[in-house]
């Protein structure tokens, strides 16, 4: 079943390539991503929570010479990420509907390829398979930034590609070292994640490999000193590109920490947690302050992503149930909220052809529907109780507090700054004196897409257990093993 979900977008991309009409490809893309989403829902509802562990495993030999296997499956964590990926890809199509006005075939083809690669990252149970999807994703993503992006699109696309690639070479070397050490100790040469995670490495090696994996994941998240590619890429990317970047790509890094760093190098993970706390705190507070002075709406949202990912990182490294469950929940929730915010920014840009805050103002009087939905997502981004963000943020702060009190305090400080820049932005864009003559409200397509996410954000805000029940088993077994 998981293989079908994985290959369906690829098939869709093939259909897009064969389709003769430039207009019809949109519908192919919408249909494919929609079907993929429905199939992933099917997996969600058929996942046996009481049994836990990896289910829906598909298995086949792929490169027997090096015992590299094709092995995919989902556990609680992968499942949440899978749902998030298919949902956001499904949302990305309507966000591109009018924004992408040329080379549509290429665009939707790349989008579907990208979806396959992203799903692959989250469901691979073989280290090398994971790496292949992890890297393969770079080509379509940087093409999307580079072809349909803004003014500095080429610079941003190259920076994104090279930065991420530079990070992941250390992952590749680390992987090979890990596998060869495992092979020389146990006599079993394998890339299977499940087998490798039961292996206890000596601490000295754990330290090295932890940092090798860290660089790759930290660039993707991005953790504080490695975040400089993100504002460029987010700002220059076309709306659907930003939606996917913020919604899915950033979570690959945190997913990597959970799936690999923690089970493979538990001692080093615990040892270096304080370093990550400091980096996380810097990310939360520093980028929030940076966001406060930005004039470009998209940049504000982009920096807010870095800030929010800081919460996730601290949650992951707090090594207690609250922190990790909160972090996973926050990953999902940040995916939805930031995707929605980028969608809204894109919608405004399509109408005004500017992203400068000073050129906007009073949009609420022209576009009540947009303003209402934007209000909801702004509040969700700030972490208002009743939205899903509150659950994620609260749990990660609790986790941070339990790990070390000062971390909790500083994270809470970050929440205040977060409220500041988001509310400033909202006021300047939607209230104050109108600076534009006319502004069209959301059309049905945009309203449906955003409304759908809004419903989910509120629903999961009041009923987080719907998601949490998938995570409990995963977290328990993860922390039990550490």
């Amino acid at each position, binding site marked *: 079943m998981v293989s079908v979900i994985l290959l369906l977008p690829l098939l869709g991309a093939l259909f897009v390539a064969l389709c003769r009409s430039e207009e019809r490809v949109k519908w192919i893309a919408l249909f494919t991503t929609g079907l993929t989403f429905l199939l992933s829902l099917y997996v969600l509802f058929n996942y046996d929570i009481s049994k836990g562990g990896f289910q829906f495993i598909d298995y086949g030999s792929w490169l027997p010479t090096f015992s590299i296997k094709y092995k995919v499956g989902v556990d609680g964590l992968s499942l949440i990420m899978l749902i998030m990926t298919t949902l956001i890809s499904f949302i990305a199509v309507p966000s591109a509907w009018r924004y992408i006005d040329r080379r549509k075939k290429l665009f939707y083809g790349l989008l579907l390829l990208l979806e396959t690669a992203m799903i692959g990252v989250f469901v691979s149970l073989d280290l090398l398979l994971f790496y292949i999807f992890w890297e393969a994703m770079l080509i379509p993503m940087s093409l999307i930034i580079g072809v349909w992006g803004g003014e500095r699109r080429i610079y941003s696309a190259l920076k994104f590609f090279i930065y991420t690639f530079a990070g992941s070479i250390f992952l590749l070397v680390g992987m*090979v070292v890990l596998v*060869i050490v495992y092979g020389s100790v146990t006599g079993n040469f394998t890339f299977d994640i499940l087998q490798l995670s039961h292996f206890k490495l000596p601490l000295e090696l754990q330290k090295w490999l932890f940092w090798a994996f860290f660089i790759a994941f930290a660039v993707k998240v991005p953790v504080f000193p490695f975040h400089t590619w993100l504002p460029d890429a987010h700002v220059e990317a076309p709306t659907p590109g930003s939606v996917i970047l913020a919604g899915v790509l950033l979570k690959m890094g945190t997913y990597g920490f959970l799936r690999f760093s923690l089970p493979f190098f538990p001692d080093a993970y615990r040892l270096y947690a304080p370093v990550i706390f400091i980096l996380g705190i810097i990310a939360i507070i520093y980028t929030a302050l940076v966001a406060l002075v930005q004039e470009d709406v998209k940049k504000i949202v982009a920096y807010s992503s870095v800030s929010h990912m800081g919460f996730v990182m601290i949650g992951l490294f707090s090594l207690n149930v609250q922190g990790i469950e909160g972090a996973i929940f926050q990953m999902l929730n940040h995916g939805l909220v930031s995707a929605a915010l980028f969608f809204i920014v894109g919608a405004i840009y399509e109408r005004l052809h500017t992203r400068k805050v000073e050129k906007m103002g009073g949009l609420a009087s022209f576009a009540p529907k947009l303003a209402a939905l934007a209000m909801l997502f702004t509040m969700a981004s700030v972490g208002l109780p009743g939205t899903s963000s509150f659950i994620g943020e609260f749990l990660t702060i609790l986790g941070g507090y339990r790990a070390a009190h000062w971390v909790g305090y500083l994270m809470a400080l970050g929440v205040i700054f977060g409220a500041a820049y988001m509310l400033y932005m909202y006021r300047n864009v939607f209230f104050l004196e109108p600076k534009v003559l006319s502004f069209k409200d959301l059309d049905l397509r945009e309203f449906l897409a955003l409304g759908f996410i809004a419903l989910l954000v509120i629903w999961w805000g009041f009923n987080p257990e719907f998601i949490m029940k998938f995570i409990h088993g995963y977290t328990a077994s993860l922390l039990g093993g550490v």
Partner: protein
Amino acid sequence: MELNVKLLFPEFFVLTAAVVGILIDLLLPKRMKNGFFATFSVFVLFICVFLVLFSSPFVPEEAFNGFVKKDLLTGLSQVLILFSSLIAVFVSYGFLKKFDTDYVGEFYYTLLFAVFGAMLMVSANELATLFVSLEVMSISVYILSALFRKDYRGKEAALKYFIMGSVGAAVIVYGFALLYGLSGSTLYGEVGRAISTLSFPVLLSLALVISGFLFKLGAVPFHGWTPDVYHGAPTPVTLFMGAVVKIAAFVALLKLFYPVFLPLVSEWGEVFAVIGVVSAFAGALMALRQENVKRMLAYSAISHTGVVLTALVSVPAVAVFSVLFYLFAYAFMTVAAFGFVSLLTENGFKGENLSDWRNLYGKSPFLALSLVVIFMSLAGIPPLFGFWAKFYILVALVKVGKVGIAVAILVASVISLYFYLRPVVYAFMRKGEAVLPPVEPFELGAVAVTVLFLIIFGLFPELISQASIFALSSFLRGII
């Protein structure tokens, strides 16, 4: 004491075909030559692929009293040589239509002579045979570079290549002479038995032979000729140089060094590793600012050669396997890349520069997407063929604990990513008009097939891995 002539049947077949080509050239009117000779060469090479497949023994066999030794390593590399040459012929057909020359027949039969040299080079089991076959190949390539009228660049390249190549050959011969003096024989096996310790003459001959090979491979510090020659030579010839000459030189190197210098493997392994890392970096750094794609690919070839050389520091079995796999990937990528450049070239060397590729996607989406596959494969991005080549080298290095070298070549690959992305940037992201001459269907088909292989073998590399392992085990039987 047996001649065992039938073992060399594929080589003789190509040689005969080349000689027949000379005769036919005298009789044909000029306008028919291109079509006829292209078809002729394709048939010859195609039949020869089957001859090689059927005649390559798993258990190594010797011929001409041990002057020639064939195993699956030879067989496999010959298939690779023939495949690359086939693509070279297809590309040449289109190229000769676009560019005028009086020497159509000469072009094709010289190409066949070069193929013969390369095929003999990978089967050589004796110093003089190796040298002679190396020269047959090299001299043919010198001639091929200079065959186009009004092409001052090609003539300059040919002369440069000739002078530099002769020096390289001379260095190799000095090394061989010393080896003969030490052992009293030119057969690999007997020379190997005479050399066991690192005395000064051995060291000197080793240094000379290594330098000579580095010359032919175009590795730092003997890489100076590569960019000029790759740039100047007609594109199909560059394709041939990039793929066939490199395969032949590498396989000859494996077949020479492991039997002859096996006791000293740790010494020369280290040498190759150091030179490899330096080449990988030097090639990558110098390619960064190239505007001409052929020049850029020449520097990228230096970088790739460096990466392959580092693998020799590993244990012999793993080293041979990963080198062979890399050669496979590299040959496909080189052939595709230069074939692609040749497709876009028109009179006056237009279409060779990055700026001529602006907005290629607007002109031809198919070509632009092939370009992405080719250059991303060269950069080693999964799931394309080039990634696996890099991956196996990495495994080979980590296996013997050379993590530092592994990281170094990967850092070099990050640097090279920048220039491999530039064609993509030009073809998709810059505004402008691409130059697109009328495309010859055969030429396009050949390039499309290789691009398809880059994807297929990227998704399913098992076939090539298995083939390389067979070749490896057959090769090891011959040494032990």
